[in-house]
C-alpha cells in the first residue's frame, strides 16, 4: 500500500560516537543505517548487539520515533508540503521539515520511509490527511 493509514512506533538503535567509529559499522542484513550527523547514527531495526570502535560510544535503544512508508507515487504529495527539494539519488537520507514538522526520511527506489518524533506523529497524520479522522 502506498498511502499509510497512520504512523507506527519504531524501534531502533541510536549510536553517538566518534565519526570514524561510526564509519566502520555495517548495515544489518535486513536493516538500514541512517547517518543523522557525523557523530550520530540510527540503526533500523533495533540491534540486539553492536560493536563500536569507540570506548566512549553511547548506544541506546531509540523509541522516540514513529514511522510510515509512502510509495513512490506519494512523493509529489510530500514534496508539495516541503520547502526544500528531496534528494534525487537513491538510496538517500534527508532531514528537514515536512508540513512544518521535523522529520527524517529514508528514500529507496520504491518510495520513502518517513520518521517523525512520536509526540508529533498525530500532527503529521492530520496535516498529511492520513487515515479517517472523523469520529
Amino acid at each position, binding site marked *: 500500500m502506498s498511502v499509510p493509514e497512520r504512523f507506527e512506533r519504531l524501534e531502533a538503535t541510536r549510536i553517538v560516537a566518534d565519526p570514524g567509529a561510526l564509519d566502520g559499522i555495517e548495515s544489518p542484513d535486513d536493516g538500514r543505517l541512517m547517518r*543523522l*550527523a*557525523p557523530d*550520530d547514527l540510527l540503526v533500523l531495526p533495533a540491534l540486539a548487539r553492536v560493536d563500536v570502535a569507540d570506548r566512549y560510544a553511547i548506544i541506546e535503544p531509540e523509541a522516540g520515533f514513529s514511522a510510515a512508508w509512502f510509495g513512490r507515487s506519494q512523493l509529489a504529495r510530500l514534496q508539495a508540503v516541503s*520547502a*526544500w527539494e528531496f*534528494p534525487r539519488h537513491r538510496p538517500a537520507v*534527508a*532531514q*528537514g*521539515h515536512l508540513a*512544518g514538522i*521535523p522529520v527524517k526520511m529514508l528514500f529507496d527506489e520504491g518510495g520513502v520511509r518517513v520518521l517523525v518524533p512520536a509526540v508529533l506523529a498525530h500532527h503529521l497524520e492530520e496535516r498529511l490527511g492520513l487515515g479517517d479522522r472523523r469520529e
Partner: protein
Amino acid sequence: MALRLHCPHCGVRPVDEWVYGEVPDPPDHLTGADERDVDRGFMMSNTEGAKQERWFHAGGCGRWQAIERDTTI
C-alpha cells in the same frame, strides 16, 4: 523569499528549521567587565555586511553550525 541556510549535513534549508544564536561581540571601547557583560547579554550588534553567526538546525540534524551571513543580501 525566505532566508535559506546551508547545513553541511542536511543541505540548504529554510530558516524555519533553524534557531538563531548570536555570537556576542562587545565593542572594544567597553572595557569594564560589567559593561561588557551587559553588552554581551542585551545589545545586538546589528552588523551591516558579513557576520559570523551560530545557528542550531533544530528541524534537521540537531547540530550547531558556524555560518557567515551577509546581512545586506
